[in-house]
């Protein structure tokens, strides 16, 4: 029997009341109450986010940054207020350091396409890690191919922790960039990014941190980390899809060439010459996802009101409880057992394929992710084709973990 019971999980806030804020959670799936354990793929949205997007479309809808009319001023103010909110959320020095993008993937591609193209030369080296999402592998690979630069990979151990001694050995005077994830989406590992950044700086390299899976679960302070670039996606922090943020130190952003050309990123255009706008607008060509930006602001406001530290503390208890309950299931092996972990319970069960597990859990109303989680090198490392991943958010409960465990027993029954 488990030494922990679900009642041992104490929330620093009223979880049932929080669940009331998320309309999507109030439904049944295949006749069973929905147990949503796929927040690492995308988080559900609280009513305030849905309302903010709706309010924009119903009341304030206008293009931003150029109209003199009332609606345009309102939409501009609301959109730019999100930038100010993101500054507080990441503790950036200035809101000029925050670029609106579609998501983490575009943020990383923006850096490789602008900073990378300008600064990387043949023979240079870029370091990533063995637990990166494809979005923090492929853009660097493309850059290295174009520039004849070298991509090097920090290995990990069997728990799914980066081997820091090996990282130290990879750093050398040719290292230009170290791009690693703050929290692994497939394993849940929290990487020691402050130390990783310090070591990169000592070697004369810059550091980009993929914050897609950290921002939903913990407080992030880009100044304390001394990150050069930090990227995250709106939809994983309770906001809408199609909006995300690239943070970059202002001096770096100013020295970078623009990303896409078009409206809003310019000051003066003639057929002979164009003067680019200041940062961050230099990187924001075209009408952006205004509704998405406003929704993101509402989401960050919601998280900050609850306190990112409280959310982290609660989710940590849920994770510990889930780890213990899952570990009791015979034949189940957790993939990713780092000592510092957040939000993710990835596992395999002897002789049962993750897709079969996922389908049978779905029939019980339990939504999990099955597959390679866009991290095929991680799957190869653990010699599994795929895993089943239950991922947690602030609205999950210990009772839902119990339902997951019951669901897994049901899966085992079908295949016994």
């Amino acid at each position: 029997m488990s030494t922990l019971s679900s009642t041992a999980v104490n929330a620093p806030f009223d979880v049932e009341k929080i669940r009331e804020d998320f309309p999507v959670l109030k439904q049944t799936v295949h006749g069973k109450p929905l147990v949503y354990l796929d927040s690492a793929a995308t988080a559900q949205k609280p009513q305030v986010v849905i309302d903010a997007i709706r309010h924009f479309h119903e009341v304030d809808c206008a293009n931003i940054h150029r109209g003199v009319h009332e609606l345009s001023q309102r939409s501009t103010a609301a959109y730019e207020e999100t930038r100010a909110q993101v500054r507080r959320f990441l503790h950036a020095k200035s809101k000029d350091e925050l670029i609106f993008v579609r998501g983490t993937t575009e943020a990383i591609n923006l850096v490789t396409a602008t900073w990378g193209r300008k600064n990387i030369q043949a023979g240079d080296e870029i370091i990533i890690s063995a637990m990166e999402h494809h979005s923090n592998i492929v853009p660097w690979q493309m850059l290295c191919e174009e520039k004849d630069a070298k991509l090097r990979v920090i290995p990990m151990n069997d728990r799914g922790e980066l081997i820091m001694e090996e990282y130290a050995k990879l750093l050398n005077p040719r290292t230009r960039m170290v791009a690693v994830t703050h929290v692994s989406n497939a394993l849940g590992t929290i990487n020691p990014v402050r130390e990783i950044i310090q070591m990169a700086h000592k070697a004369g390299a810059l550091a980009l941190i993929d914050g897609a899976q950290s921002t939903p679960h913990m407080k992030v302070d880009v100044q304390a980390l001394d990150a050069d670039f930090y990227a995250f996606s709106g939809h994983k922090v309770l906001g809408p899809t199609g909006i995300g943020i690239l943070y970059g130190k202002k001096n770096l952003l100013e020295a970078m060439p623009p990303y896409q050309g078009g409206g809003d990123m310019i000051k003066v255009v003639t057929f002979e010459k164009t003067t680019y706008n200041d940062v961050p607008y230099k990187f924001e060509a075209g009408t952006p996802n205004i509704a998405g930006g406003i929704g993101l602001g509402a989401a960050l406001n919601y998280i900050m009101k609850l306190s990112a530290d409280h959310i982290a503390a609660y989710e940590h208890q849920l994770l510990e409880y889930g780890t213990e309950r899952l570990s009791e299931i015979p034949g189940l092996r957790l993939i990713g057992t780092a000592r510092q972990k957040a939000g993710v319970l990835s596992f395999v069960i002897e002789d049962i394929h993750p897709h079969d597990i996922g389908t049978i859990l779905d029939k019980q109303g339990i939504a999990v992710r099955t597959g390679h989680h866009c991290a095929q090198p991680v799957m190869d490392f653990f010699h599994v084709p795929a895993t089943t991943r239950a991922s947690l958010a602030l609205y999950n409960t210990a009772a839902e973990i119990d339902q997951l465990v019951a669901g897994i027993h049901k899966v085992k029954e079908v295949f016994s």
Partner: protein
Amino acid sequence: MVHDLYQETILDHSKRPRNYHAMDDANRHADGYNPLCGDKLKLFLRMEGDIVQDASFIGAGCAISTSSASLMTESVKGKTRDEALQLLEKFHELLTTDVSVSKDLGKLVVFCGVRDYPARVKCATLAWHTLKNALTQAAEPATTE
């Protein structure tokens, strides 16, 4: 509940796949791969003229893809190339359309539940895509994409 998908025959063939071995005297081979879930299989055929004399496979996959490969190898033995390709068409129809179940499918009708699980159709068709490649001898591995 889940038994509309995981029927007894499917569970049986996934736990004890038939014709699960490499074939030394095969004269047709094809590889199948589903990048979405990592399912991989290698199919072996021994053709005599136009007739599939023997069929076998090895690989790793979910219950749906393994049982589908197992039942596929059973079904095509003794069939001509054209008959096997026709069976593939009928099987595909079974999974993707609402047409009434053809009696030519025999045991394969156990997969009719898959049509209610669109995300799983590719699991059931992997072996058949691979069969098509083996019969038409395409050079590239079959994929479900």
